[in-house]
């Protein structure tokens, strides 16, 4: 019988070695797998390449990984946290800055067996022309730049070649999950979670609610269990959500 449920995050994540590339879901703290990120910190993993849309605004979640010096490279669109930049400019972490839509598409592509695709996003900018500093050295000079993107015209317009991202592992969060790994997300906490899950060669999902197989209808599953390897219950410390508001008839 297929049973992807696991109970102990420390045991589950133990096979993740230092140095891994890890795709993480969430947009700020919304839909971020804090239970798994905390377990990774507690396991003292270091030298990580973290692929995530943003760091968030405090020292929880990705911010904790950063504060504890566990990140070697961040691939993101919107780091935000000022302390991240201190570490970046000091030469202690690399930043691969990627347009948000390109990042989402690269994660999906990696999971979908598409090694590369062309996009107009970023064409003609310093995120494509090889001048954006990937990292600094200790004296504050640029040590390396992000690679220049291959360019090609389609329909008379310049596009850049972007590569699919296949992460060694993925950490994601969902609202509900069953023993087969089928996941359902809630509202805008969905965001990058299905894409990070697709990108991971081995994917861990924390869920707010463990459900029986069949409780999620076949048309109500946002991500089929084939992309998920292990399912854990989110820590009770994770914030629980109240009912969201629909403003009837409001248009803005």
């Amino acid at each position, binding site marked *: 019988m297929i049973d992807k449920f696991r109970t102990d995050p420390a045991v589950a994540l133990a096979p993740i070695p230092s140095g891994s590339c890890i795709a993480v879901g969430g*947009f*700020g*703290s*919304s*839909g971020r797998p804090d239970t798994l990120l905390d377990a990774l910190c507690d396991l003292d993993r270091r030298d990580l390449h973290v692929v995530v*849309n943003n760091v968030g605004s405090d020292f929880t979640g990705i911010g904790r990984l950063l504060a504890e010096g566990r990140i070697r490279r961040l691939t993101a*669109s*919107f*780091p*935000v946290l*000022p302390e991240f*930049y201190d570490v970046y400019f000091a030469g202690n972490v690399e*930043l691969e*800055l*990627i*347009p*948000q*839509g*390109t990042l*989402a*598409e690269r*994660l*999906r592509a990696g999971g979908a067996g598409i090694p590369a695709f062309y*996009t*107009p*996003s*970023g*064409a*003609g*900018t*310093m*995120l494509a022309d090889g001048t*954006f500093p990937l990292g600094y050295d200790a004296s504050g000079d640029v040590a390396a730049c992000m690679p220049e993107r291959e360019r090609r015209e389609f329909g008379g317009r*310049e596009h850049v070649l972007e590569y699919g991202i296949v992460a060694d592992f993925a950490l994601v969060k969902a*609202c509900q999950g069953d023993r087969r790994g089928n996941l359902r*997300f*809630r*509202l*805008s*906490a*969905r*965001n*990058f*979670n*299905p*894409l990070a899950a697709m990108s991971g060669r081995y994917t861990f999902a924390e869920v707010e609610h463990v459900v029986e197989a069949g409780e999620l209808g076949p048309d109500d599953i*946002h991500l089929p269990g084939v992309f998920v390897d292990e399912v854990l219950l989110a820590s009770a410390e994770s*914030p629980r*959500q*109240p*009912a*969201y*508001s*629909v*403003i*009837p*008839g*409001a*248009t*803005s």
Partner: protein
Amino acid sequence: MTQATAPVAVGGRSRDGIAARLAADLKDGYVVNLGVGIPLLIPKHIPAGVEVILHAENGVFGLGPPAPAGQEDPDLTDAGKQPVTLITGAAIVDSAMSFAVVRGGHLDVTVLGALQVSARGDLANWYVPGKNPAVGGAMDLVAGAREVWATMEHVDRAGRPKIVPECTFPLTGCGVVTRVYTDLAVFHVIDGQLVLKECAPGVDPDVIRERTAASYVEDLG
């Protein structure tokens, strides 16, 4: 801070006035993405009877007003991570689908703040060198939306023109801007050429000319 070098007041629109002027150009049924700054003032100025679907790049089609105090839901935020509400009939998608909409040309308008707009519609709005770089969805939005409307003060706090022959700040996109709404004027970009379409009430075309570094055509008909 820079009072000594601040520009002489020449009238023109307030930030809310810019938002209201732009909102008047939104059409019923438009799907619209709003950036931070002046664009966030637009919703309250959307004309009655005009139904606009507001898109948040984190996957919301049909943003409502900010969440009332005490009803914030951590699972429902806008692209600025602020708690929001939904309109009736809103749809949620993942980030790849959100940007499939954007990149695929299914967004009618993206309204963005700008550092600079060039004579041919280049946009710089994501990065001031020396500060902390972050791009978010700006490059996807300007590459994909059918219309890219830049909103900004006509000159910066030091009085320097923000509509320039060539952007000196790093570009967000090349030739992407289709309209510019400032406190002084409305420009359209037509065939790669800036065209002054409107002066704000009480603003003389000469005032616009002296505060605009880029060349442009006048079509105030």
